[in-house]
C-alpha cells in the first residue's frame, strides 16, 4: 500500500505508514530535522520540521504527521520558514559562549541554520553543564548539545536497549546524564557509540576530531559472528578514520557495538607485519616475497601428504578458506585442515550433524525478535554478541517475550530475564534432561512433531526419564520449581515459538557434545524447530567461523559439508583436474597437536590463528609446536605462534581485501577493500595462490590453472558451482540485494531464513540422542586448588586480544586483566577488591586485578581469556577433551589465588573501573 501527496507542488508517492517528513525527504526538498534519526521513531522535540498542510491548523511537525492520500504540503511558505528560523535561533542560543552563539560548526544544526539564513542569534547564550570526559573514547559536551534527545533514544529501549543515558532535569536544567547523575564511565554504558552516531551537533564526539572523509566503503565488521554491516570512512591518506553503522544491513539493522565502531585502529597499527620474514640463524630477517615464497615451497615440498597440517582462519574470508583447503587437499595431499571452531562450537556441530545432519544455526536474528520465549544458556551475549543481544532485548521489551537465562554467572542479560537458573558448572546434562522430562510428563511435548519427524525417542526416553526434578535439583543446585517453570515456558511460550541460544558455556566442557544433544533433544521434544520464532542457535564467535567451515576448512568434509566419501571424492576430483585427493578424513587441531609430539605432523601452515594463545594449557602446546620441522605463519601481527615460526608471511586485514564473510545466521555478506594493503602485505588468498602456483611448478603437478585467480569473485564463482548451499549466490546478487542467507540453491532463490521446515539434511527424521550426566568436570577443586576458574570474554576485547590490544579505544576501556571474585571469597582468601593477585592452576599462573562482584558464585572466579600484560587465562586451563568433539574443557579448572604484594597493573595509580 502506498499514498500519494503533494510536496511543494510535486506528487510524491510513499509507502503506507510513512510520515510527511519521509515524503518531503523523498521529494529531495531539504527541510531541517534535528531530532529525527532516519532509523528511529520521531521524537518531535526540535520543532524544526514544521510545515504547512492544507486543512490542518497551524504548522505541525512533519515528522509526527502520517502521510495521507491527497495531502497538500508546503514547506517554504513565509510563515513556516519564519517559525523554523525562530526555533533555530532559540536552538543556537543554547550554546553558552557568545562567540559560539552563532552558526558555527555544529553539523546538522549549522546546515539547518544556514538554510534559514541564520548567522547570529538575537539571544544571548546561556550557561550549560560541564563536559563529561570520563569515557576514554568519547565526551558528552553539553555546551554543544541542543537536547534533541536522539542520543538517549539510541541508548534506550527501541534501539540499543542499554539505557545508560537519558534526559535528566526539567526546563533549561534538562541535560543528558546517567542514572543518579554519575559520570558516564560509572554507568552501564558499553561505549557502543550509538549516541555519538546519532548526535546532530557533535556534542557527543570522539576525543580527537577525525580528519575529513575522502570516501566511504560499505563492508562487514571483522569481530564477532553477528556480522554487522559497517561503513568505513577513509581519508585522503588511506587511513580509516571512522566506522559508521550500516542501517541497510539486515543482520545489524543500523546497530554496532564498541568493538565494531571504535576498534579499527589495529588496521594501521605500527606493529603490522609489513614484509615477509625468514628465520635465519635463529633471528627473523626481512626478505622479499620471491625469496619467502620460494623458501616456503622448497621446505613444504618435503612434507606433502600425512605429515602436513594446516590451520585456516575464521577471521579470513570464505574465498581465503576455500583456496586454503584446496591447496591442502589438492596440492599438499592432506586432509589435516581445521580451524578454531574446534575450540568453540565443535560439540554443537558434532551434535547437530548427528541429530539433524547440518551444523548451522537453524534460525535468524529476526526469529529472536518474533519468539515468545528465548532461552539463553551458557552465553554472555551482551559481551560476545552485543548486537544480537540488543535484538533479544527487543523481543523482551517490545513484544513481551519470556526470557530464561541459564548461567552459573550473573550476566547482564539477567536484568531482563523472567527466570534465571544458576546451575553448578558442568551439570547441564542433568538440567536439560530434567526439563525434557517435565515437558513429557506434563503433556507439553509436541507429539505430532515427535512421531512424524523424529526417531530414537524411546531409547532417549529410557535415559531422560531417570531425571526427575528432585534428582536434578540435587545435581544442579537449581530448585525443582525453577527447572519445571523453565521447561513449561519453553514448551508453551505465551505466543509464537521458542528459541534456544547457546555459547561456549555449553560446549567447552568434557560433556560438551552431551550438553549440545541435551539442547537438541529439548527442541525436538517440544517441536520448537522449523517455524518462525523458533529454532536453535549456537552463537558463532568469529566473524567468519560459519564461512570457514562452509568453505571446507574441516578435516572430514569438502566445501559445503559434503562428507569425504566416494561420491564427494569423485565430484571434487572431476572438478579439480582429475587429480587424486586424500581419501580419508584428516586430523582435527586438538589431534594435530599430539601428532606433533609423535612426529606424525612435521610441518604446519597456520593462517590467521594463534594457537599458542587459544589452546588450553599453553605451556604444553608451545612445547608441541616447537617440535615441528617447519612452521609457516601467515598473519597481520607478530604473535605467540608467529614468534616460533620459520617463516612469517604478512597478510592483510579485512579492510584491505575483497571477499565474503558468512555470519551466524548463515548470511553471506560482502567484504570490500577500503584501504590499500599495509606495507607489502597481501590478502590470504593471494599468498596461498602464489604458494600453490610455485609448488605446482616446482613439483611439476600441472595444477597452475587450478589456482589462476585474479579476484576473489572468481574463487566464489567456483565455490558456487561446487557447493549446493550457495549455488544461487553471486557477487552481483550480493551487490544488488545485500547479504543472502544460505541455503540458496538457485539464482532466483531468496535465501533461507530458517531451516528444517519440512525435513532435515540427514533425512525426514531428526534423531534423539540421550546422554547421562557424567562427572561435572575433569578437574574439580581440591585443598590446594580450592576455586573453580570459569573463562569467557569481556565486551572490550576480542578473544586472545592480539587485535584489540592494538585498538587504542578498546585498550583504554579495558587495559588490564581482571579476576571476577565474589566478595565472600575475597574475605576468605584475604584478597581485597582491586588488589593485584596471582592465580595458579596445576599448569601455570597469571597475574591480574581482583574485581569484587556478585556475578560470581562463592567458590568460582572468572577470568576473560584475553591476554593483557602477558597474562592469559589459558596458561591455567585444562586440556582435557570432550571425547566426542575433542573440544578442551576451557570452562572449568581448579585454581588458587594469592596476593602478589605489590600492584603491577597499568591502572595502579588510577581509580579502577569495573569491566568484568
Amino acid at each position: 500500500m502506498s499514498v500519494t501527496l503533494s510536496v511543494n507542488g510535486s506528487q510524491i508517492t510513499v509507502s503506507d505508514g510513512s510520515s510527511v517528513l519521509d515524503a518531503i525527504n523523498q521529494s529531495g526538498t531539504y527541510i531541517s530535522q534535528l531530532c529525527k534519526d532516519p532509523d528511529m521513531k520521531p521524537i518531535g522535540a526540535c520543532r524544526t520540521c514544521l510545515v504547512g498542510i492544507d486543512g490542518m491548523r497551524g504548522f505541525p511537525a512533519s515528522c509526527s504527521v502520517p502521510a495521507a492520500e491527497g495531502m497538500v504540503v508546503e514547506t517554504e511558505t513565509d510563515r513556516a520558514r519564519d517559525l523554523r528560523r525562530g526555533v533555530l535561533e532559540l536552538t543556537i542560543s543554547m550554546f553558552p559562549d557568545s562567540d559560539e552563539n552563532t552558526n558555527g560548526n555544529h553539523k546538522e544544526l549549522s546546515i539547518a541554520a544556514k538554510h534559514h539564513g541564520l548567522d547570529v542569534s538575537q539571544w544571548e547564550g546561556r550557561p550549560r553543564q560541564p563536559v563529561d570526559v570520563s569515557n576514554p573514547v568519547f565526551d558528552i559536551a553539553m555546551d554543544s548539545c541542543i537536547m534533541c534527545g536522539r542520543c538517549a533514544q539510541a541508548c534506550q529501549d527501541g534501539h540499543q536497549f542499554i539505557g545508560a543515558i537519558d534526559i535528566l532535569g526539567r526546563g533549561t536544567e534538562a541535560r543528558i546524564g546517567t542514572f543518579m547523575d554519575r559520570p558516564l564511565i560509572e554507568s552501564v554504558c558499553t561505549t557502543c557509540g550509538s549516541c555519538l552516531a546519532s548526535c546532530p551537533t557533535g556534542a557527543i564526539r570522539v576525543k580527537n576530531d577525525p580528519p575529513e572523509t575522502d570516501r566511504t566503503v560499505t563492508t562487514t565488521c571483522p569481530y564477532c559472528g553477528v556480522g554487522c554491516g559497517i561503513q568505513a570512512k577513509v581519508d585522503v591518506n588511506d587511513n580509516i578514520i571512522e566506522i559508521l553503522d550500516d542501517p541497510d544491513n539486515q543482520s545489524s539493522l543500523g546497530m554496532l557495538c564498541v568493538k565494531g565502531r571504535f576498534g579499527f585502529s589495529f588496521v594501521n597499527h605500527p606493529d603490522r607485519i609489513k614484509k615477509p620474514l625468514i628465520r635465519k640463524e635463529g633471528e627473523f630477517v626481512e626478505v622479499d616475497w620471491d625469496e619467502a615464497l620460494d623458501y616456503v615451497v622448497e621446505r613444504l615440498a618435503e612434507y606433502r601428504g600425512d605429515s602436513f597440517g594446516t590451520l585456516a582462519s575464521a577471521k579470513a574470508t570464505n574465498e581465503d578458506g576455500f583456496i586454503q583447503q584446496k591447496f591442502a587437499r589438492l596440492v599438499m595431499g592432506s586432509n589435516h585442515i581445521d580451524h578454531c571452531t574446534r575450540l568453540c562450537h565443535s560439540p554443537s556441530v558434532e551434535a547437530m550433524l548427528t541429530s539433524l545432519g547440518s551444523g548451522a544455526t537453524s534460525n535468524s536474528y529476526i526469529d529472536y525478535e518474533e519468539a515468545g520465549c528465548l532461552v539463553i544458556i551458557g552465553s554472555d551475549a551482551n559481551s560476545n554478541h552485543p548486537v544480537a543481544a540488543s535484538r533479544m532485548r527487543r523481543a523482551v521489551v517490545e513484544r513481551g517475550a519470556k526470557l530464561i537465562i541459564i548461567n552459573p554467572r550473573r550476566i547482564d542479560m539477567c536484568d531482563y530475564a523472567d527466570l534465571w537458573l544458576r546451575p553448578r558448572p558442568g551439570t547441564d546434562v542433568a538440567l536439560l534432561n530434567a526439563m525434557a522430562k517435565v515437558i513429557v510428563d506434563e503433556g507439553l511435548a509436541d507429539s505430532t512433531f515427535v512421531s512424524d519427524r523424529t526417531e530414537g525417542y524411546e531409547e532417549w526416553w529410557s535415559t531422560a526419564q531417570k531425571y526427575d526434578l528432585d534428582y536434578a535439583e540435587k545435581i544442579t543446585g537449581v530448585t525443582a520449581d525453577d527447572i519445571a517453570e523453565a521447561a513449561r515456558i519453553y514448551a508453551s511460550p505465551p505466543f509464537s515459538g521458542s528459541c534456544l541460544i547457546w555459547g561456549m558455556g555449553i560446549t567447552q566442557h568434557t560433556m560438551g557434545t552431551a550438553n549440545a544433544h541435551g539442547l537438541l533433544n529439548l527442541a525436538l521434544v517440544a517441536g520448537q524447530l522449523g517455524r518462525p520464532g523458533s529454532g536453535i542457535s549456537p552463537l558463532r564467535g568469529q566473524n567468519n567461523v560459519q564461512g570457514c567451515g562452509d568453505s571446507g576448512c574441516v578435516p572430514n568434509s569438502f566445501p559445503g559439508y559434503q562428507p569425504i566419501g566416494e561420491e564427494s571424492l569423485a565430484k571434487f576430483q572431476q572438478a579439480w583436474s582429475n587429480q587424486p585427493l586424500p581419501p580419508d578424513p584428516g586430523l582435527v587441531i586438538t589431534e594435530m597437536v599430539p601428532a606433533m609430539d609423535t612426529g606424525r605432523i612435521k610441518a604446519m601452515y597456520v593462517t590467521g590463528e594463534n594457537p599458542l594463545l587459544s589452546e588450553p594449557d599453553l605451556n604444553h602446546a608451545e612445547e608441541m609446536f616447537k617440535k615441528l620441522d617447519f612452521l609457516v605463519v601467515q598473519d597481520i601481527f607478530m604473535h605467540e605462534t608467529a614468534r616460533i615460526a620459520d617463516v612469517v608471511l604478512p597478510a592483510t586485514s579485512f579492510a584491505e581485501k575483497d571477499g565474503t564473510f558468512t555470519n551466524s545466521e548463515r548470511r553471506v555478506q560482502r567484504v570490500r577493500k577500503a584501504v590499500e594493503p599495509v606495507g607489502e602485505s597481501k590478502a590470504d588468498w593471494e599468498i596461498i595462490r602464489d604458494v600453490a602456483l610455485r609448488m605446482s611448478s616446482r613439483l611439476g603437478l600441472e595444477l597452475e590453472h587450478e589456482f589462476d585467480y585474479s579476484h576473489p569473485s572468481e574463487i566464489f564463482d567456483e565455490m558456487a558451482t561446487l557447493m549446493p548451499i550457495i549455488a544461487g549466490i553471486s557477487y552481483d546478487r550480493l551487490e544488488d540485494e545485500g547479504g543472502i542467507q544460505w541455503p540458496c540453491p538457485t539464482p532466483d532463490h531468496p535465501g533461507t531464513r530458517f531451516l528444517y521446515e519440512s525435513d532435515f539434511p540427514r533425512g525426514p527424521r531428526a534423531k534423539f540422542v540421550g546422554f547421562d550426566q557424567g562427572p561435572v568436570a575433569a578437574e574439580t577443586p581440591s585443598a590446594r586448588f580450592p576455586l573453580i576458574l570459569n573463562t569467557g570474554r569481556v565486551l572490550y576485547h576480542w578473544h586472545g586480544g592480539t587485535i584489540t590490544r592494538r585498538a587504542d579505544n578498546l585498550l583504554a576501556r579495558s587495559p588490564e586483566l581482571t579476576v571476577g571474585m565474589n566478595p565472600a571469597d575475597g574475605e576468605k582468601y584475604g584478597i581485597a577488591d582491586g588488589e593485584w593477585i596471582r592465580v595458579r592452576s596445576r599448569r601455570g599462573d597469571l597475574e591480574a586485578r581482583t574485581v569484587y562482584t556478585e556475578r560470581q558464585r562463592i567458590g568460582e572466579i572468572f577470568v576473560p581469556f584475553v591476554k593483557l600484560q602477558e597474562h592469559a587465562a589459558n596458561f591455567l586451563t585444562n586440556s582435557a577433551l570432550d571425547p566426542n568433539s575433542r573440544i578442551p574443557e576451557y570452562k572449568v579448572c581448579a585454581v588458587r589465588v594469592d596476593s602478589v604484594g605489590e600492584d603491577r597493573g597499568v591502572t595502579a595509580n588510577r581509580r579502577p573501573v569495573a569491566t568484568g
Partner: protein
Amino acid sequence: MLHVVNGSIQSRMNALVQSATERFESRVAGKTRVVAHVGHCSLSAGADEIVRALRQQVDDDSTLIMAGCDGVCFAAPSVEVIKPDGSHTYHQNLTPETADLSSLTSFTANAGPEAASFLSSQVRVALSDCGSLEAESIDHYLANGGYSAWSEALQSTPESIIDHLKDSRLRGRGGAYFPAGIKWEAARNTRAETRYVVVNCEEGEPGLFKDRHLMEGVPHRIVEGALIAAYAIDSHQIIFYINAEANLSSQRITMAVEQATELGLIGGDVLGSGFDVQVEIRRGAGGYVCGDETTLLNTVEGYRREPRLRPPFPTEAGLWGQPTVINNAETLANVPYIMSHETDEFTSIGDGDDAGTKIISLSGSVKRPGLVEVPIGTTLRQVIYDIGGGIRGDRELTAIGVGGPSSGVFPPDMLDTPIKPGFLHDAGVMLGAGGVIAIDDSMDVFEVVRNLAQYNADESCGKCTPCREGTPRMVELLDEVVNRQASTDQLENLARLVNETSLCGLGQAAGNPILSGLHFFPDRFAGDQGAGK
C-alpha cells in the same frame, strides 16, 4: 436515560441500596445531624479543630457527619445542622469557641445568608450534594441514588451508553473540551486486547481546586462515572491519577474504591453482570505538565515526565500502547447524572451546543471565593458579582485572570463574556479548566502576567526547544520591555513563536498570558509608566 433490561442485576442493586439505606438510617434516624464540611482548604482554615470540638460534644440525640467541603470557601470552616424535622441551619467561619453543639442546634434562623446566596444562583450537577453527602461512606451515596447509573449501565449495551453520552454533548472539563462520547467511541472502536480508563485528577495549575473538592466531597460519583466509562469502552482497568499533593483526595478515592469493591460494585462479575473491572490509584509525578494526558501516561509507565507525540492519540495507543480513555474528574462526575436522566434534561442546561455546567474555581479579590458551578454561557460578571459578591473591601476590579497560566487576563470591560469551551478571546484567553481570579487595583497586571510567564518557564519539561528555551526568554524579555531595553513587538513575536511551535499544550499556551496582557493592557507593558506603578 438508559433503559433497564436485566432484572437480576437490578434486584441485586435494589438489595444493595436497601441495606445501605438501612445502615445509614439506623445511624441517623431521629437524630440531629451535624454535617461538617471537611476538605483540604477548610482544613487549612481550621476545620479539623472544629470537628475535634464537635466530636466531643455529640450525644445520643445527635450525630456528626463528615462531608466534603461544599465549595463555599469563604465560609470555611462551616457546618450544617439538620434536625430530625428536616429544618436546617448553616454556620460559617466557626472557631473552636463558637463550635458549641448546643448553641448550634438551638439556632432556628439560617445563620449563613451569604452561603445561601452564593449557592442559590448555581446549578450543581457534578457538585450536587457535595458538602451534604457523607464523604467517607458509600451508604449515604447509595441511599441517595448513587451507583444507580452504574447498575443501569450494566443492564444496557455499551453502544447505547456511548450514544447517550454523545447525545448529551458532554465535553471534557479538563480544559480541552473534546466531546466525551466521541472519545469513548474512538477507544472502543480501536481493536485491542485490552483498554484502559484513566481518570485525570492531576489538577496541577494554580487557582484551580475543583477536582480536589469533587474527590473529597463526592468521590463515589467520580468512581461511578469511571466505571461506566470502563464498561462502555470494554476496559477492565481504571487508573486514578491523583495529584501528588492531594492527599485527602487520594485518601477518599481510595476509601471509595475499597467500599465499592467490598459491596461488589467493583471487581469480578459486578452485580452478576459478568463484567470485571479493577481500579488502581496512582499518584502524580509532580508538575503542571503531568496533567497533559500523554505526559501523564509516560509517568504512569515509569518514563520521564514529558509529552508524547500525537498521533497516535491515546484512544488509539495510550497506556502501554493500548487504547485509553483519559477523562478529567469533573467530566466523569457528570456522567452518572447524564446516564440517569433524559438527554434534554442535561442539554437544556447550558448554551445550545455547549451543554451542561462548568465548575469555576473562583478566587482572588472577590468577596465570596469558592466553587461556582454554573451553566455554560453564564457571564464572568454573573460569576464575579452575582455569585462572588463583587470585589472585596473598597477596591476596584482591574483585571480578571481566566483559565490559569495557559490562558490570560481580561480587563473589566470584558466582564460580559460568557464562559464557553475554547477561546473566549483570540488574544489568548480561554476558559481552560475554569479558574477565575479577580484582580483588584492593589495588584499590578504586569506582575500577574510575569508570574504566569515565570510559572510556565518553571514548569516546562524541557523536551521541546521552543518551550524550554522560549519560556525563560519570555520572562527575560518582559523585564527588558519594562526597562525599555526591548520592544513589545519582540515580546509578542516570541510569545507567538512559542505558541505556534511547541509540542504540547503547555508550550502551545505559554505565550497567552503575555499576548493577552499586551492586547488588553498595552500601557502596562510599555510607555512611560511601564510597570513601575
